[in-house]
């Protein structure tokens, strides 16, 4: 799939419609008692035969929040989401989504919940518009079809049949189908898989727009940038339980983790002892793990200026979300 010039502008065109649509959501959000989570999970457990897929998972998702579930394949993300969606029954634990146990939820509960499932084929013989019309007819108060098409970036694909859609377009149809019921809670299981970079940006804008409308979103993804851009909070699952939890900026004590200072030491120069003892050489470059980068940089620059050295390639790097994530999930050995 190639980037189309229309894609980056989609959300720009949308802004007025989003404002109109948001009225209903604001009203609905206002009714909800504050402080009661939209999703509340305690001690969730699910096994397939001998394999414990999810164990002792606690989870709270608050109204209007975007929560990203991260974890290696097989960590229990999809199992957890399937239970929250009501497709799977938990073996043990309490699950409460919008006030009910999803496994026993009445059909009316599904009026309020939108789902982008991990694998689903389009209806091959129906056009994108017809497929949306079919689904819209099952809701009491569906979102307008044209508005939904625009939200998902499918306006110029409306008359294309399911069988003719590219991978990214099929995924966007999934997103459109999840939005056509005008949900207040949205589950997105790897929503941008198969998207090219431009389409992914457009999808992020769409999701961010939905959050601005007050839609609560639970999302799984393998793209760290996606989680960082969209999520208010990240939960890292590994081996079926919660390994870490927090906002992207502080996950896994990322904000307090050591920074790395890198530079090339000019030939013949020698670091002062107090820095040299903590430095390691990597392919000709010095790497200094620093818990207090300001103090260390001050010492380093004082020494360099005095010695008349210009460390022109010096860089200071904070651990990225991916660094933290890989650290958190490394010990599991289930990176399959």
């Amino acid at each position, binding site marked *: 799939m190639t980037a189309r010039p229309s894609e980056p502008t989609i959300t720009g065109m949308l802004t007025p419609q989003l404002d109109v649509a948001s009225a209903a959501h604001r009203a609905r959000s206002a009714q909800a008692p504050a402080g009661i989570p939209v999703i509340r999970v305690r001690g969730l457990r699910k096994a397939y035969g001998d394999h414990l897929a999810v164990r002792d998972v606690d989870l709270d998702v608050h109204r209007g929040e975007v929560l990203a579930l991260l974890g290696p394949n097989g960590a229990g993300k999809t199992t957890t989401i*399937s239970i929250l969606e009501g497709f799977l029954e938990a073996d043990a634990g309490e699950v409460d989504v919008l006030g009910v146990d999803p496994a026993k939820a009445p059909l009316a509960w599904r009026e309020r919940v939108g789902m982008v499932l991990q694998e689903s084929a389009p209806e091959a013989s129906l056009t994108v518009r017809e497929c949306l019309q079919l689904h819209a007819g099952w809701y009491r108060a569906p979102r307008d079809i044209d508005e939904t098409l625009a939200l998902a970036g499918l306006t110029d694909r409306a008359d294309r049949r399911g069988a003719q859609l590219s991978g990214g377009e099929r995924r966007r149809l999934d997103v459109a189908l999840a939005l056509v019921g005008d949900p207040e809670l949205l589950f997105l299981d790897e929503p941008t898989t198969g998207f090219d970079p431009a389409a992914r940006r457009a999808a992020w804008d769409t999701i961010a727009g939905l959050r601005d409308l007050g839609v609560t979103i639970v999302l799984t993804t393998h793209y760290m940038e996606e989680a960082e851009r969209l999520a208010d909070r990240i939960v890292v699952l590994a081996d079926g339980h919660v390994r870490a939890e927090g906002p992207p900026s502080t996950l896994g004590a990322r904000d307090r983790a050591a920074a790395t200072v890198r530079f090339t030491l000019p030939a013949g120069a020698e670091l002062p002892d107090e820095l040299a003892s903590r430095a390691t050489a990597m392919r000709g470059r010095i790497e200094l793990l620093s818990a207090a980068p300001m103090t260390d940089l001050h010492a380093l620059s004082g020494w360099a200026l005095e010695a008349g050295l210009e460390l022109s390639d010096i860089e200071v790097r904070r651990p990225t979300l991916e660094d933290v994530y890989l650290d958190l999930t490394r010990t599991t050995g289930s990176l399959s």
Partner: protein
Amino acid sequence: MILHTLRYELLALARNKRARVFTLGFPVLLLVVLSGLSGNSPTTTFDGASVSLQRFFLPGVLAMSIVTSCFAALVQVVVTRRHSGIYRRRRATPVPAHVLVAAQTLATTILGAAAAAILLVVGKAFFGVGIGAGPLVALALTFVLGALCCCAVAFLVATVVPTPETAQPVVQFVMFPVLFISGIWFTRDDMPQWLRSIGDALPVAHISDALHQAVQASSFTGAIAPGDLAAIAAWGLGAAWLASRRFSWLPSTATA
């Protein structure tokens, strides 16, 4: 909501080339070949009475078209939709399960009825097999009941077929032997008793027999076969009941 869903099911079916060829085209071709080959009025027997081959083949092919469209094709569609996540996505909406089942069953039956109408017109126009108004009503009733029964059996069989790849062989393995012993191509009059007994235990022979009776009769009452219709209804209800207990909308490997 059923009508809304039915509209899109019919639209999808009408656009499906495979459905058009196999459900609408193939039975007509078969009728033309069988009836054409049997020219010069040779006869066979149905229930002991002599009948022209052309009049024998029309209800036979009608019965076969019910089985191919409402059983074979439906099993394939149901298993494919389940496997590809289409059902799962539909069940993520507030649509009740019975709406999906009813709409799909009705759409399949309507397509089957369209095939039947073409067969009746071709039979009359090219092979002179006319049917009176009374028997025609009985024929329609029998056809619809048979179609609904086959749809129920299709949903039931779909519960034991895991993937679209296995649907084809399972369907063929079930369908062809049953068609052979059910009086579609050969009269059951000449079959050994044990084969007739197997046929009697299954629904297709009753569908075929009831359709034969309707085509050969001259009045509505004469065209109705109460015993056969009761057997078809019993099979349909039994299959529907079992399917409703065992049917799953999710692929067998739904989660991992």
